[in-house]
């Protein structure tokens, strides 16, 4: 028997070594029939469909999309970017929650986060710039949709959902603005709250409800914190789900122009 080199022995050992694992009951219980993780992937129309169908995240997409819609110059990927930024903000936001108390300790917590937590400054920066970017990208997405006339029948209502999402994005950003509890935060929010107090009949009540008092205090901080980390994310996820669902139900991307 010929002696195998080390390299050949490795190669021989690696051959089919994944098969028993892939074929095991445990693996087949995880991956659905047809999943590339069961049988391996070879490029065929059938497998291209399976990639999309057998993954819960990719399943947001249909198996096939209009050819003109995949051009980057058509959508600029702005809707997808909005969603992606939302995910980034959720992850970094959860991370930041570990180091933050919405009390009079808030400012000290931010300082400690920036100076004595590993990557604290980076993650905080990502959260803040990401939030600004998201407002910008959502707004650009809306403009893109307008210029393509994509709000027209049958997509009228999805445009309405989109406008609600834009406002929810603004509310999310605005409630987050107060949380660092520095001079920039408190006075920006005071200005914003004063604008809300110009509402005709209920102006004073709205401001009082928003601030949990007559001016921005730590009670306001707690209120904005809960709105920021729980209430608005909860609402926006519901509207996002409707938005994505309607995109598909209304026939995918609009156009071509």
């Amino acid at each position, binding site marked *: 028997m010929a002696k195998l080199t080390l390299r050949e022995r490795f190669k021989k050992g690696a051959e089919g070594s994944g098969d028993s694992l892939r074929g095991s009951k445990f693996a087949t219980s995880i991956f659905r029939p047809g999943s590339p993780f069961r049988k391996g992937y070879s490029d065929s129309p059938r497998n291209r469909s399976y990639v999309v169908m057998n993954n819960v995240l990719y399943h947001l997409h249909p198996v096939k*999309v209009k050819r003109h819609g*995949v051009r980057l110059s058509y959508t600029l990927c702005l809707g997808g970017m909005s969603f992606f930024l939302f995910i980034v903000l959720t992850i970094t936001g959860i991370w930041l929650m570990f180091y933050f108390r919405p009390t009079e300790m808030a400012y000290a917590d931010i300082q400690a986060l920036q100076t004595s937590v590993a990557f604290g400054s980076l993650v905080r920066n990502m959260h803040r*710039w990401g939030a600004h970017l998201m407002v910008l990208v959502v707004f650009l997405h809306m403009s893109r949709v307008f210029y393509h006339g994509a709000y027209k029948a049958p997509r*009228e209502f999805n445009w309405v959902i989109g406008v609600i999402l834009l406002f929810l994005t603004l509310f999310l950003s605005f409630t987050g603005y107060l949380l660092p509890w*520095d001079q920039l935060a*408190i*006075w*920006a929010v005071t200005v914003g709250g004063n*604008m809300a107090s110009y509402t005709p009949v209920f102006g004073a009540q709205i401001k009082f409800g928003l601030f949990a008092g007559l001016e921005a205090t730590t009670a306001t901080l707690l209120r904005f914190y809960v709105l920021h980390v729980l209430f608005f994310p909860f609402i926006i996820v519901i509207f996002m789900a409707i938005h994505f669902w309607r995109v598909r139900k209304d026939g995918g991307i609009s156009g071509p122009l």
Partner: protein
Amino acid sequence: MVDIPEHLLLRSAEARAKALGISVEQALAEMKGESTPTVVAEEPEVIEIDTPAPAKAEVPAPVETPVTEEEPAKAEVPAPVETPVTEEEPAKAEVPAPVETPVTEEEPAKAEVPAPVETPVTEEEPAKAEVPAPVKAKAPAPAKDDSPEEVDFAPEVKVTQRLLTVVKAKPIQKASAEPVDKVNTWPHLMLPEFISLMAMMAFLIILSAILQAPLLEEANPNITPNPAKAPWYFLGLQEALSYWDPQIAGVMIPLVIGLIGFAAIPYIDRNPENNPSKRKYAIMMFTFFLAGAGTLTIIGVLFRGPGWNWTYPWIDGIWFDDLLDWIYFE
């Protein structure tokens, strides 16, 4: 050649044997290619079964009803009794089916059989004569010994289907949309998506590594900065507030124009075109709005200083702490 499972082969051999009138073993051998296939020239048995069939079918009714009146009467009693009154002849002529049932024990069959002696209700007789079809249908029922049903049908080998009606070839669902040129989501959409996602992530991380987010001194309600500015996306609004009455600028613009007006765009703009050259008015309006909002925001961010007075950023500096803090970050 593909291996056909034994049980499937056997089943089709049985079917073939039945169809050709040969033994199952022979059919099996033929299908396996071990003997030459039987060629069926004509189906003699089919023809000979056909001939007796009409002969019997024609005479069933008279055959079974030579007996007295009671027998068919019994057969009919459970059947509809709802029209017991016999006077209206024309009505009966119109509705043939229940006609023969009502009163008479004497049988429709008698219309064909020569013994209509009793005729208790005479008016019906012509009606009965007109409608022999239901008569025949009933007549076989009491006859147990005879078996006309078997010969009513042609042998199964011969007739397996019949034409009921001709339906025009029209789809149930009308496809109104033109077929569109589509590509697979994987990889044609997901790959660009993944790349732009990675690019955005890289951009955000690099941005966050370079630019420090602002953090001023701790919040102090007693020290009001001058100017006090809202977040940048509200600064256009704050700028508008300095021109107009707050009732208008603070409420009408964001609520009526911003929320309600924007949401109502698809219901206001009923022009179905989405080609930019055919919706110039809508595009012009929206661009005006964008330009106005952008101008106000830029003015609010860069050109407003203490007391909301006009300043030039290149002369007086930037009076927006959100921007200021990281622009001068060293």
